[in-house]
């Protein structure tokens, strides 16, 4: 089911962040929302997930759907090992043996199998974010909301995590909404890229990605063309 935001309005004090804002996110599809800082991207995710309630309007399509969340920071519990961090969110949905098997399986997929029993402070920033990715994918959800999850990482780590995402998404289709201010991330991951401006938030453009997810790279001229187009829209 597509996620539909219908006529959302929300203000923080005097600041009108959303005024009659509507948006539809297709099912099983990665939608990148691209926009400058402060245009209401994170707030939009919080409205979709229900962490925030709008003053008027509503979100449909998520219903009882479980949501995996990826934040700007890894948000791992420092007192638990990486393995326990993943198991914590998975526990309610599977029998005990399956919980540990599934958690470890996803840690393996993000390349952290050897670090499963480490605490977050013993890992590098990139490894912590990969652990958060493992948690997001191990959690049995139909929707994945991502709030600039690569923001704190260097270019190399960012590109390797993007590849990891493509691989994981191939294994398991989920509806994903991905918020970013980075054009490269948007063109590499987004099947659709929505350019957002605000406040109050409004859609400036909607671009379909011309290439299938796995073939996208920053060397492909069609991707570079799209990057150019987005650049002129944002600049």
């Amino acid at each position: 089911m597509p996620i539909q935001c219908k006529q959302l309005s929300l203000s923080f004090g005097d600041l009108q962040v959303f005024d009659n804002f509507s948006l539809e996110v297709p099912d099983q599809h990665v939608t990148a929302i691209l926009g400058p800082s402060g245009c209401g991207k994170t707030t939009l995710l919080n409205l979709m997930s229900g962490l925030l309630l709008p003053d008027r309007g509503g979100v449909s399509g998520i219903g009882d759907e479980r949501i995996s969340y990826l934040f700007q920071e890894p948000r791992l519990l420092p007192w638990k090992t990486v393995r326990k961090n993943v198991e914590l969110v998975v526990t309610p949905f599977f029998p005990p043996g399956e919980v540990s098997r599934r958690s470890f399986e996803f840690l393996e997929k993000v390349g952290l199998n050897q670090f499963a029993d480490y605490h977050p402070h013993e890992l590098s920033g990139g490894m912590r974010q990969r652990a958060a990715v493992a948690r997001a994918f191990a959690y049995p959800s139909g929707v994945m909301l991502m709030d600039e999850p690569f923001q704190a990482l260097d270019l190399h780590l960012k590109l390797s995590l993007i590849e990891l995402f493509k691989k994981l998404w191939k294994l398991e289709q989920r509806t994903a909404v991905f918020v970013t201010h980075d054009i490269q991330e948007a063109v590499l991951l987004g099947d659709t890229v929505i350019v957002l401006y605000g406040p109050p938030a409004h859609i400036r453009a909607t671009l379909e990605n011309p290439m299938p997810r796995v073939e996208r790279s920053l060397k492909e001229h069609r991707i570079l063309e799209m990057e150019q187009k987005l650049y002129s829209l944002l600049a």
Partner: protein
Amino acid sequence: MTGSTSKNKKYASGEDSQRAPRRGGTIVVKVVLNCFIRHHILIISGAAITILLGIWWIAAFVIDATIILPPPPAVGRELWALLNSNDFWHSVGLTVFRGLSGFFISLSLGIVLGIAAGISLPIHALFKPLIAVIRTTPIMSVILIALLWFKTGTVPIFSSFLIAFPVITQNVIVGIRQTDQKLLQMGRAYGLSATRRLLHISVPSVVPYLISGAQTALGLTWKVVVAAEVLSIPNWGVGSEMQLSQMSLETAQVFAWTVVAILLSAASQWVLSMSIRSMSWSKAYADTV
């Protein structure tokens, strides 16, 4: 400050080792300097203790009245005599028992009430006045009132409980309130139930606050237990012995028991900090979230 001084010293010793072949006797200076650089913190502390003992000794010599200020060797002899008596361990054992009883009762009740008051404003409002009153009551009033209510052996336990309990409760309340909102939001986003959020996110967040509360509380505990023993004079106890020595004007013995009380407190703090050190994550807590 310490870092820069130790750097300067290292530099100085480097210079010194270059000149060493040209000067006879520098080898001794070099050894002393090296030793100083390696253990300078220990040496400075050692020097401070020596100076304090020296001042004490000189003062005792000037006053020249053992009953007012006994010299360190007299206190040392008393301490040695105490250590070799059976009664000594009986007294120390009972004081430790009383202190730890009070401390652990405060700890367990403080954690339970602190968590409850930390998550529920009505419970906090209910207990806030009581905690505020206990916190501001003079220690001596607590002990004197306890003397009217309890048997002598119970007075130190009750008094130390009453002093330590608000400290621990208050710290736990602050710890629960300071739980990282971003982690709680993560918990909500992943659909963790309120109980699991409390158990896995809020309660572990309290640990650093609980540790600092426990350290303060433990320090207070020994002071209060000994004071309560001095006033209530139960059959055995460091405070009782101190009081009895004072009444018979055995000043050196009062000093010796004081040393025992100080060592007791220091030992318990050491045990506590050792157990804290085993929790490696508490150090790196801030920058991993």
